[in-house]
């Protein structure tokens, strides 16, 4: 079960498993972002390379207008994937948010 929801405060909340079957749903939400946005990972248990690809695509698009994603509240296992993939240089990851 994967859920991606825009929250009232402008953040985007992720929960469940972000796998290759969820790419279209995620693109539909991330593709609408126009400004710097926090992505709250606190409910996310798992992300695969397909999920990383969705976020990377949104980040690239936003970066063209000087904006970007701020990734917050990742669990340790998900955080480890970003570290292994060396995506820390691509995204702003705020471990203390």
């Amino acid at each position, binding site marked *: 079960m994967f859920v991606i929801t825009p929250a009232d405060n402008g953040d985007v909340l992720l929960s469940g498993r972000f796998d290759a079957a969820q790419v279209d749903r995620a693109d539909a939400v991330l593709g609408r972002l126009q400004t710097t946005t926090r992505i709250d990972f606190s409910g996310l248990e798992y992300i695969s390379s397909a999920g990383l690809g969705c976020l990377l695509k949104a980040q690239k698009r936003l970066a063209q207008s000087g904006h970007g994603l701020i990734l917050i509240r990742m669990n340790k*296992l998900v955080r480890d994937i970003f570290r292994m993939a060396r995506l820390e240089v691509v995204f702003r990851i705020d471990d203390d948010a």
Partner: protein
Amino acid sequence: MQRDFTKAVSSLSEIFAFIDEHVAGTGISPAGVYAMYFVVEELFTNMVKYAAASAEDVTIAVGIDGSRLTIQLTDHNVEPFDPANAPKVDPSTPLQERRIGGLGIQLVQQMVDDLQYSYADRCSTITITKTLEP
């Protein structure tokens, strides 16, 4: 134990449930289970993407012997495709040139001890082994 799965990304939830069945009661750490999901998803979705011409199911076998994990995926009636030969991603590449294709298989190679590809009788078989940490 092995099972056949329809070659489509919509099979992933069923595949994760299959992995969950194997790990229940084994004491495999959450990090180990995460790696199993990641590795199987990556290898399976590669088969979905690159061997779509064959509609036959993909067979996934999982074996756990103590701390040694073996996972085998077999794609039937396909042309050869060795995922380990996919183009590599240079992590120092600037953002605008970064692409995710190729990154997944590199992560898989970091997560496992060994990845072997074989092709016989029009079947592609990928076998990974991994030592599970407690």
